[in-house]
Structures are given as structure tokens and as C-alpha cells.
């Protein structure tokens, strides 16, 4: 804990779990889409999110995150108008997602280049989140630390190539947590690396150049 856990975060109200956390879940979707423009989202809201999302502005917050805004961006309030202007169609569906945290959202998205995906995450209090599933692959990261997500093909040598790069070129970066998920043998897979430090921009480019890596993204701590 440090002083900014008590004095902070700076955020758009009214509730750190219902707005700030919700926005951060949306931002993961934005990051995963990368340069592609998201044209359609279906947002399932479970538990307390489902019951109070309109009064708390959870809908606006998630949408703002999907549009790339931060939990402290004033645009969060007007995200529905901004979504309409940018040609992003959205729907909110209250849905009981069994066995999940009371503030869970599942976002299905579709981009202009045809890419589709899904992110499931929970807002666990104080603006903190826990992402539990990406594209059907189980993950578990909170966004407390700078987190690298590397979508890749399940082939021998990919993990070694990634860790080799991290050690040889970015030796100052310490990996605090590592997790691998995959849909099936030889299919799509996802590596998650939580870092103790903030990596430079070049790490993404270098990771993207590794054979069988489809795409690497960085989720900044408290971003």
C-alpha cells in the first residue's frame, strides 16, 4: 500500500467499483482490439452490475473504456453519445453469469476488420479489477501491475523466445507472475506476464516480431 491508495484514485464518480473498475474492464477490450475499430459490442452485466448499472453509470463507464478513455476522463459521462458518433453500436444485457464475482461484466466485441473477441472481468473494489477470461481462455490478472498479454500460437519455442527476449534485451524488467492458457493443443494461446516495472514501448514491437506471436499488448498498472 502507498499513499495514493488512500488519497486516490482520481476518477469519475460515483463509485470506484461501479465506474472506475468498469471503465478499466472496458479498456482491456480497447487494448485487445488494437488498431482495429470496434464497431459492435454486446455487454453482459451480472450481479450488482446488472441491478444498478443505470443508476451508477456502469454502462457509460464500460463503454468509455471500450472507446479508449480512462477512469478519470471527463468523456466518460458522454460515452454513449461519443459511441454513436464513432459508429459503435452497443447493447447492455443483464445476465446471470454463475459462479462469478458480484460485479462481473462480459464484453463481446466485433471490429471493422472482422476480428471478434470476448473479455470477462470483475470489478473487485476500489477501482481494482480482475480479468478472468479472454476469448474463451482462462486468465487471471488484476491490472495492479503492468501486464503483458501475448496472443500466440501454441507451438514449441514461443515461450522460450519470449523469455529469452525479456532476459537478453529487457533484463531490468522483472517478471512477477507468468501464466499460460490455451484453447486446445496447437491452437490459440495466451501468455500473461506481470512485470514489476514499466516496460518501454519497444518491448511490444519486439514481441510482435517473434515467430508465432499474433499480437502483444500492454495493460498499464492502474491505466
Amino acid at each position, binding site marked *: 500500500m502507498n*499513499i495514493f491508495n*488512500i*488519497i486516490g484514485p482520481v*476518477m469519475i464518480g460515483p463509485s470506484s467499483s461501479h465506474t472506475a473498475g468498469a471503465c478499466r474492464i472496458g479498456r482491456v477490450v480497447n487494448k485487445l482490439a488494437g488498431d482495429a475499430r470496434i464497431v459492435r459490442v454486446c455487454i453482459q452485466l451480472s450481479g450488482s452490475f446488472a441491478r444498478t448499472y443505470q443508476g451508477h453509470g456502469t454502462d457509460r463507464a464500460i463503454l468509455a473504456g471500450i472507446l479508449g478513455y480512462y477512469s478519470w476522463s*471527463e468523456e466518460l459521462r458522454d460515452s454513449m453519445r461519443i459511441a454513436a458518433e464513432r459508429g459503435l453500436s452497443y447493447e447492455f444485457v443483464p445476465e446471470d453469469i454463475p459462479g462469478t464475482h458480484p460485479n462481473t461484466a462480459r464484453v463481446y466485441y466485433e471490429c471493422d476488420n472482422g476480428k471478434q473477441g470476448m473479455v470477462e472481468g470483475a470489478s473487485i473494489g476500489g477501482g481494482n479489477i480482475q480479468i478472468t477470461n479472454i476469448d474463451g481462455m482462462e486468465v487471471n490478472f488484476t491490472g495492479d501491475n503492468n501486464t503483458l498479454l501475448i496472443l500466440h500460437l501454441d507451438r514449441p519455442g514461443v515461450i522460450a523466445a519470449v523469455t529469452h527476449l525479456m532476459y537478453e534485451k529487457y533484463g531490468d524488467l522483472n517478471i512477477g507472475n507468468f501464466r499460460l492458457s490455451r484453447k486446445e493443443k496447437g491452437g490459440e494461446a495466451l501468455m500473461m506476464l506481470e512485470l514489476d516495472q514499466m516496460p518501454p514501448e519497444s518491448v511490444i514491437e519486439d514481441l510482435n516480431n517473434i515467430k508465432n506471436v499474433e499480437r502483444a499488448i500492454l495493460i498499464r498498472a492502474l491505466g
Partner: protein
Amino acid sequence: MIQYNSIREIVEVAEKAGLKISELCLKDQAQQLGITEEELYREMEKDFDVMIEAADWGQQPGRISRSGLTGEEGYRMKQYAEHKGGLTGSLMTKAMARALAVSNCNAAMGRIVATPTAGSCGILPGCLVPMYEDRNFSKRDVVMSIFTAGAFGMVIATNACIAGAQGGCQAECGSAAGMAAAALVELMGGTPAQCADALGMVIVNELGLVCDPVAGLVEIPCIKRNAAGVILAYACADMALADIGLKIPADECITAMKEVGDRMSSDLKETAGGGLATTPTGKRLREQVFGKE
């Protein structure tokens, strides 16, 4: 390195070193975060600027919450303060206006600093913005006093909790008001021990306060409890500065708060299952916003 698990220890270390609690905390946190003291100060100054903006924003007319249940509290209090002065004097009514304004800003999806939470975000600005804008304390001193508030807040978070869902409103508005009281004491030239006394006195007075938001929204009664928290913070800061003394040490008050919070029914901890939330009017307002169950 300070562990932030004892108010008494922080007071002793500060007094021994001849430092204000804020100065001690700034040194320690700069070291822990790996940045310079000046960089850390600047970060905190940015947070204070957000507090000032939120207070200004919420004192404008037409600021209504998303649900429509609340609005214009800060604006009305500001008008009243300026035109009537108020029973408690204009400093207090202006302080309440800021607290209501920031809380209203939060409910209306404006930008705030959670201090320590969004539900209690009006109390620290309600106490400190008037010291800067109306009482002409230097910005540096006011921003520094936030480090004292934060240092004590970290102890509460470590030894008890700061979330209504975990410990009731005593843990949210109680912690915020206690932190603010300590900041006020330091600003007024009080000793570290007096800062601790002010914190403890607030906790003594907020003990047992439940978290019972109507419709589960951070509006009723949260917004008004922020104004009340400001009054309590000023009152306890004055009592501490008058050297009335705290009979139960602040650390023990925090432990008592935790015990009370643990024994509080979950219906009374942010779930809208009791208290004001389940009054006939509370239920009706819920239906008004979210429709029938």
C-alpha cells in the same frame, strides 16, 4: 521505512525527529515509491487541484445525479453561505458547501479524488479547500497536510478498513473525517500527538455508523454525511488543539471500529438491505430509479 500499522509509532517517530507527520510521510513515501520528494509533492498537488475543480464544478447550478435522486446540494449551500452566512458561521457553511459540492460532483459523474473512497470524497476537500481559498493558508502547507491525512488513512486501512462494504459508513466517512481532522490540526500548528487525538475523536463519534445507501447508490444519505463529516472534523480538530485530550488512544479507537464493523450485519454494509435503504420512502425511491423487483 514506516509500516503504517500504528498511529502511536508514527507520532513517536515524527516527534523524535522533530518533523511534522506530513514531512515524515513525504520522506518515507518518496523512498518507498522510488521518486524524489518534490516529484511526490507535485503528484499530491495535482490531486488537490482535482479536489478544487470538483468543488467548483459541484457548486454550479444544474448538477444533478445520474439517477435524478439528488442534485444541487453544493450550489444551494453556497448560495446560503454567501447570502445568509449560516448558524455556524461562513467558514463552516462554505466548508459544507465544498463537501456537498464534491459529493454531488461524484454522484453526477464528475471527476473526484477518492479520499479514501468515492463515497466519502467530499470530506477532505470540504475541510481543506476553504483553508486554502478562504483562510489563505499557502497551497504548499495545505497540500502537505494531505500527507498527514494519508499516513493515518494507511494505518486505518491496515488495521481496520476503509470500505463501507467491509466496515460500514464509520469506515468510509469516519476514516475520511478522522484523516481530515488530523490534517486540519497540523495546518493550525498542532503537534503530531494532537493530530492523533483529532483522528481518534472523530472515530469515537462516528463509531457504529452504518452504510445504508438508498437504491444502493452513492447519494442518499452519503452526500449529507460528507457535510456532517466536515463539521465533525473541524470540531474534533478544535478539541484536539484545545488540548482536551483523547482518553482512548487512537490505535485502540481504530481497533474498536474494526470490531464494530465486523459485528455489523451485512444488511448494513452497502448492500441496501437495511437502515434508510429499506424505509418505505427508501424502497419507493429505489423503484423510481430501477423499477419494481
